[in-house]
């Protein structure tokens, strides 16, 4: 085993166009940890084959322009990757109510285990970030939503385009994404260039690039610019910055390490004990569940309530037992209704409602919903 002093292994970058493995700058680990170099045929206690490094192997091929375009969709704060387009708050609200409200709630208030998108005026909510319940457990905590917390709006555009709606992602056009971003800016009462994103607002690429989020400077270390990486290294070289303690082994406390006021804090009540399956370390055999019996116990109503009701009993999708709402779908034939349900649709219906039941079981759930009185 060996541990090299960090300072002994500082190489310099040679003035070449590219960095090769042997020329990498060796410094203390950027995250405040130990750096274990490969020296000869070993790193820490692991043996390596030194002949396996420094080879030119290029086993793939160069991606085509179209392939790069298809996959390189990320959006950076400076606008790299942000497409042209535009969208109004009005259109955004319409889309939000069709595709987002079932999870993110009215005006982005959250619910159903999905995050809130707004807690009101972002500039005011931003002030709550200094709330910390460490001295007063009854105090209000900080509110971390898009408007109050996120440092860059580029994150929002990128995330919506790539990863929303959650159950059917990558289905929004650029203009639809702009519209949804506009709506979310609106419910957070964000101003762009001194102008509030009100209900009449139409967001464009140019306007988007002028967004300054209230919490833009709320993060440490500063990762931007040419010193970004070094800022990170400097930050993590001081344990106090991130709540860590360094001590020499011989100086660690072994006796009388506590304040006299130290006390035992217990879980309040049952604490969180809603565990699935319930905790057990028993080694007896599980109760045999007869497969046939399990099948006959399949309860379409229960599946409906856990997987479907969120949308189908809201305004979003035709409700259970609502003959009128289903009329235009049933016209296409029950097989089409089954098929759309099983495969999902572009209008937000996730395949089988996101459940993992069999096709036959799913059809029973559909039958339950279409069982009109």
């Amino acid at each position, binding site marked *: 085993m060996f541990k090299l002093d960090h300072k002994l292994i500082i190489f310099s970058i040679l003035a070449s166009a590219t960095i090769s493995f042997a020329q990498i700058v060796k410094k203390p680990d950027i995250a405040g*940890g*130990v750096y274990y170099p490969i020296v000869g045929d070993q790193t820490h206690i692991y043996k390596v084959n030194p002949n396996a490094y420094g080879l030119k192997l290029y086993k793939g091929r160069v991606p085509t322009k179209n392939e790069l375009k298809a996959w390189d969709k990320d959006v950076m704060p400076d606008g790299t990757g942000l497409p042209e387009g535009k969208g109004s708050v009005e259109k955004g609200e319409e889309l939000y109510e069709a595709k987002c409200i079932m999870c993110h709630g009215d005006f982005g208030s959250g619910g159903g285990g999905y995050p809130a998108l707004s807690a009101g005026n972002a500039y005011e909510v931003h002030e709550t970030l200094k709330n910390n319940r460490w001295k007063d457990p009854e105090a209000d905590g900080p509110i971390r939503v898009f408007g109050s917390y996120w440092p860059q709006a580029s994150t929002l555009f990128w995330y919506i385009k790539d990863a929303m709606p959650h159950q059917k992602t990558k289905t929004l056009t650029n203009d639809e994404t702009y519209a949804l971003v506009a709506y979310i800016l609106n419910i957070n009462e964000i101003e762009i260039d001194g102008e509030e994103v009100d209900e009449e607002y139409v967001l464009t690429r140019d306007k988007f690039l002028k967004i300054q989020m209230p919490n833009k400077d709320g993060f440490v270390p500063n990762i931007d610019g040419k010193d970004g990486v070094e800022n990170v290294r400097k930050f993590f070289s001081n344990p106090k910055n991130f*709540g860590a303690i360094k001590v020499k082994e011989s100086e660690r406390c072994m006796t009388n390490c*506590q304040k006299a006021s130290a006390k035992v804090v217990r879980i309040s009540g049952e604490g969180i004990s809603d565990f699935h399956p319930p905790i057990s370390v028993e080694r007896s055999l599980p109760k045999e569940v007869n497969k046939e019996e399990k099948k006959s116990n399949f309860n379409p109503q229960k599946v409906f309530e856990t997987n479907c009701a969120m949308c189908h009993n809201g305004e979003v999708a035709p409700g259970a037992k609502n003959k009128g709402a289903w009329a235009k779908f049933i016209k296409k034939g029950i097989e089409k209704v089954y098929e759309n349900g099983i495969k999902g649709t572009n209008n937000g219906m996730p395949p089988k409602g996101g459940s993992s039941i069999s096709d036959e079981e799913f059809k029973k759930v559909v039958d339950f919903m279409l069982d009109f009185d």
Partner: protein
Amino acid sequence: MKKLVDVLKKNSLQKTQEPKLTSRREFFKKTGTLSAIAATAISPLTLKGDDDAIIHHPEWGQVWGDPVTKNLYGMPSKYEHNNTRRYTKLLASGNYRASIAVTPIHESEGIITPNGLFFNRTHGGVAHIDPKKYRLMIHGLVKKPIVLTLEQLKRYPKVTRIHFIECPANGGQEWRRPQYNSLQFAKGFMSCAQWTGVYIKTLLEDLGLKPEAKWMLAEGSDSSEMARTVPIEKVLDDAMLVWGQNGEALRPEQGYPVRLLLPGWEGNLCVKWLKRLEFASEPWYAKEETSKYTVLKPDGKAIQHFYANEVNSTVVSPSPEKPWTDLKDGEIVEIEGLAWSGMGTITRVDLSFDGGRNYVEANLKGLVLPKCWTRWSYIHKYKKGERLLLTSRAMDDAGYIQPTIDEEVGMIGVEGVYHRNAVETWEVTENGEVNHVQIRS
């Protein structure tokens, strides 16, 4: 008694069918059945006489077992059905698609987590990728970008390493008070495995990384396209693209067929179902590195790009799940635990019996590897009725020591969610039950 009668009948039946009771062994086999039934009401622990489990042939010892043709992919014993990942509604986000199922640490043995028990955290559900359609693209500030199929990727020289992966929210629900009376939920947002793949620096040799490249974006191909920004230094140090997990392909829950592995760093950074690496001179601001995985401090500023999981430890045995209620006075028992650090290698573990007032040194055992679970042990003579507050405290070779709860909260506050690594305490009650408590001033 009815049962006994049935057995008697059955035995006489067997006798008639099998009249030749020739050997002494067979004699015991038959008569043994009777006393086995008679003894069922008596627990083997209190049995004064002979133990039936020894005296009589068990069922499995007399009949054929399964043929080798069964279970061609082996499964755990049917008796081990309670050794599973578990989930809670508290963390049910996204209809359990942006959620976590955690590892039963209380049943863990050694330093390797079996693949089926490895904790499972997803942001858009577990994707199932067709390996034939798998592609990895590496581009940006490189002279020659590349697209690789899975087979091409696997032809690079391999590296195998044992590392833990920990969700930085491990213990993150307990900043203000203990909440889980369970080791599985208090510390099970992590697992440890042997990973096989290729160093990214090996791939970069012939792509020609440009000197202005400072950051790498890693992006998943799952529905959430989970993405994170990684500083180039880690990429050129020990970052790997891995496809092997404990000797087989990655499980879908761990990113089959390929995930990024940044040894010691946040599990979230180890992007699963990896599809794309891009190099740039500026960082990206992906959703999971600003809206989440940032640590809000009392001054209202939040730590971003908080990479490494800090030094940490826990007592594994006993635990709330596996108490000492069956121990006898004076019995010698092993207190066992895990220690780990994403910043280096474990050097010391100290154990306190009084909640952290005084410590004694525990012993490390087995392999002691960087950024890896490390087992530790302390032999204790149990005194019936004793009340203990078991607290473990680890150190690593970077020089870090686990803070007390007061120390950590004093520096970071209680709203950080992530990267909580203060010492943890189990209370052993007078009757041997174990409760999760915290010691605070």
